[in-house]
């Protein structure tokens, strides 16, 4: 009698079924938020969605493809500048500009990937940072976009989003919600695809994966380009909220990479649930502690160190180890069949 007869291979669990139903209900409730929430809360949620998107994307890179990039701010800033350039000089509607930013980001990511994929490990991390600095210094030379001084998005451009303040705020809220939902859906579907399977194999053991015939360079390349495009998209939405861009703000390693790494690390790297938990934890900390100034940053650092020492797989890893819970049906599991014989 073979194993196949006695064991059952499955992906979907009761927990993941419940999670998907609850997730959809939550999405519906959040989509209706402009009718039941205040303006400030919409704004905060919008920011949460954008950080969630960044965290999801960085997790795909670092958690699955093993590409520990500390230079994702290159794409966030690029997205911001693409939005400003296309709307101010191209005269495009913000929607069009935001849509185009995905394509532009992906196109830019191709030569960047070809360049930095020659580096490995710590060198790769530093290389990505260098690329982001090159972007920052590059945009600082473009005087049409304000050079090192920065530039404000004309109020007319923002007003063209929708008629009236409420409609405008709802539109920009839905853009951020749509962004987070889309990034999550793409990450989920990507991980369930052939490429995703290859990625999961790479995550678990790169050598073993390559001995199974997985083209590691190609798999990583696809992830890097997709994440680059989507991060650019998130960046354009971030600066639609900020209204003002300058090289230091656009390519800020603290705002767009350090906080994102913090989120993924405390949430749980290498899982889709981790970034969600991490984002919630990060915003709870920020909303309660940010007034403490420098102490707030010290607290963040201490928490990151504690989590890495006590629970290297993050908060979600802790939950998973204790309960075996999985909300996203990604990995296959094996379980003995309930059988009467023997």
């Amino acid at each position, binding site marked *: 009698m073979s194993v196949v007869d006695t064991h059952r291979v499955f992906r979907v669990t009761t927990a993941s079924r419940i999670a998907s139903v*609850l997730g959809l209900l*939550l999405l519906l*409730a*959040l989509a209706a*938020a402009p009718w*039941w*929430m*205040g*303006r*400030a*809360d919409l*704004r*905060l*949620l919008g*920011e949460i969605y954008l950080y969630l998107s960044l965290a999801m994307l960085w997790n795909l890179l670092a958690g699955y493809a093993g590409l520990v990039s500390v230079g994702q701010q290159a794409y966030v800033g690029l997205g911001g500048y693409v939005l400003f350039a296309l709307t101010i000089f191209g005269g495009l509607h913000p929607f069009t500009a935001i849509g185009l930013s995905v394509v532009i980001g992906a196109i830019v990511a191709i030569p960047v990937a070809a360049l930095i994929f020659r580096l490995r490990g710590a060198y790769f991390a530093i290389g990505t940072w260098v690329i982001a600095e090159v972007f920052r*210094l590059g945009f*600082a*030379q473009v*005087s049409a976009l*304000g*050079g*090192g*001084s*920065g*530039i*404000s*998005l*004309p*109020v007319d451009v*923002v007003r063209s989003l929708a008629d009236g*303040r409420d409609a405008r705020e709802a539109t920009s809220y839905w853009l951020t919600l749509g962004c987070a939902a889309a990034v999550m859906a793409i990450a989920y579907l990507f991980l369930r695809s052939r490429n995703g399977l290859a990625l999961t194999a790479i995550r678990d053991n790169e050598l073993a994966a390559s001995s199974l015939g997985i083209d590691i360079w190609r798999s990583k390349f696809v992830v890097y380009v997709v994440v680059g495009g989507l991060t650019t998209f998130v960046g354009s939405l971030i600066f639609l*909220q*900020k*209204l*003002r861009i*300058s090289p*230091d*703000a656009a390519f*800020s390693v*603290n*705002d767009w990479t350090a906080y994102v790494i913090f989120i993924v690390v405390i949430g749980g790297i290498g899982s889709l649930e981790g970034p969600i938990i991490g984002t*919630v934890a990060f915003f*709870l900390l920020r*909303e*309660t502690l*940010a*007034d403490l*100034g*420098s102490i707030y940053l010290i607290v963040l650092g201490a928490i990151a160190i504690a989590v890495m020492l006590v629970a290297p797989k993050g908060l979600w890893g802790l939950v998973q180890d204790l309960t075996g819970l999985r909300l996203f049906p990604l990995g296959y599991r094996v379980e003995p069949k309930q059988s009467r014989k023997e």
Partner: protein
Amino acid sequence: MTHFTTNRRTVIRGLAAIGLAAPAILRGRSAFAQGRTIKVGHVSPRTGPLAGFAEADEYVLEGIRAKFAEGIAGQGGTYNIEIITADSQSNPNRAAEVASDLILREEVDIITAASTPDTTNPVADQAELNEVPCITTDCPWQPYFFGRSGDPANGFESTYHFFWGLEDVIAAFLAMWDGTGVEKTVAGLFPNDADGNAWGDPELGLPKPLAAAGYTLVDPGRYQPLTDDFTAQINAFKEANCQIVTGNMIPPDFATFWAQAAQQGFNPKIVTIGKALLFPSVVDSLGERGNGLSSEVWWSPYHPFSSSLTGISAKDLANGYSDATGRPWTQPIGFKHALFEVVADVVKRADDVRDPQSIVAAIASTSLDTIVGPVDWSVGPVKNVTKTPLVGGQWQKGDNGLNLEIVANATAPEVPVTAEMQLL
């Protein structure tokens, strides 16, 4: 931010319902309980590299709050003014966030911000979009106005600014240099940031007026802030035999430049730098080589002005700060005080403090003698901007270390000169 309002609870309730929230965030209080409280938001860089500008915030705001506690008599009765402060962390991204939070969550009636374009501009942009009256200061007006893509023909709707401009700084610098008889070859050091680009701009910046006054400017181009090597610039200045160094720098860049100038044998007669030499702590850190450096002076204890709100004189305000903290006075003290003088004056005169339009109208019609000089938006270089007096000062050795002395007042004769300009 100092407290939270009810709206936060709604979002938390939503999150809590799905089991994601923690109780820590649930503290809050009603913002709408008091009928006659005007909320004023204030964004400043309390932490980070610009923290020196906001060093005196606590002291100045304490005095203002004590005065506001008595109530301000306005057109519709007596109002309480509540000041809600927020820290920009010296980061324009964070400045935009906290400004939007003050506007949307705290629903402030007036928002204020001070110190450098990185603070004033993001805050003013958020205010303009949300049509909240905004008053800012402590940033030259060109980076504020043109840095926000301002159009002199139309100006802005809701956002107003008072400080001086580059034309004033140039005049103040020239007034210092003219009497010294030093050869008129000037070295220019301008970083690639908001201030540096504005100062070095060939049309609106220093080059044209310097040429008109008979000075030759040697400008080796914009350098990247926080650079660690000024050799190229120093060589260019030595080659042109520059006797005067000017520009706009952040303190660490100036310290680097000044140390390398000494190492490489570049010894100008006059060094007049904007922004970097404002603070006693920075100049003290240069040791002996801090003596004789010069800078613009926007406010000092010698300014013959007093507060329209508390009646305190510039001298008493500065001394009060030194007595309370044991630290020397700094220039932002006066402007921070003046910012809230303007706020109080606007609240007094606004027809309807609940109506942003009415507040904006009151701001536009301000004509007030403050502790930093007259603030009156009907006289300004462009709409939404008005200017306060500026003079030239030099750090000179006194009994207790270096003091900033007023050495040239041609630009504002009402401010007395306290010492002679000395060459390095």
